């Protein structure tokens, strides 16, 4: 079963991203929203974890990235989606797990 995981906390504030990454199965997608978008930037240990994760897709909510001025710091391999893309991800996966 392919799950869409949403993470809305910065990995420097909360451990939900780490827990999610540890439990996400192959074929699932982790969508970074709200303060979770900090995980999608370069230059820190979290970026390495994303780079080394195989079998899992990563996406980030573009408007939240822009609201924080982070468009220029986006790490490779992370797909930027808008709200419409968020809805599409929800429909493309079997269920949604929100890590709050």
């Amino acid at each position, binding site marked *: 079963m392919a799950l869409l995981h*949403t993470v*809305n906390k910065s990995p420097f504030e909360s451990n939900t991203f780490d827990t999610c990454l540890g439990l996400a199965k192959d074929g699932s997608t982790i969508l970074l*929203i*709200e*303060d979770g978008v900090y995980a999608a930037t370069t230059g820190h240990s979290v970026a390495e974890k994303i780079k080394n994760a195989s079998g899992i897709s990563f996406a980030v*909510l573009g*408007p*939240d990235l822009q609201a924080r001025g982070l468009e220029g710091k986006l790490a490779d391999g992370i797909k930027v989606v*808008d*709200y*419409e893309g*968020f*809805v*599409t991800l*929800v*429909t493309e996966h079997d*269920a*949604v797990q*929100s890590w*709050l």
Partner: protein
Amino acid sequence: MKISIQVNEGPYQHEASDTAYQFTKAALAAGHEIFRVFFYHDGVNNATRLAVPPQDDRNISAQWSELAKENNLDMVVCIAAAQRRGIMDPDEAKRQGLDADNIAEGFRISGLGQLIEAGIESDRLVVFGD
């Protein structure tokens, strides 16, 4: 696809109410059916009609009311969470002997069964919160 939304965070707290609103709007625009929007925990604070944010800021409660009116949304507020936080409709205010109610247009107060039903009836349940 039939989608339901759960909102667990109050407006102007972090970002969950805004994200939930934008997501709901996008889902409707994409042609999906929103079966229900359920407000739980501090999320019930989205349902007050007495919030007066500065004029250059968005009015989150009013945004929900408008979206509900345009799309005939079913927006349900958890009764136990609402009573704790002073969100009252006219019937509840009267039953509790209070002198005022504050529920915004388009919201209705009901029980947790409505969330369970939303989970069963919808293809997807998306939760937004703190």
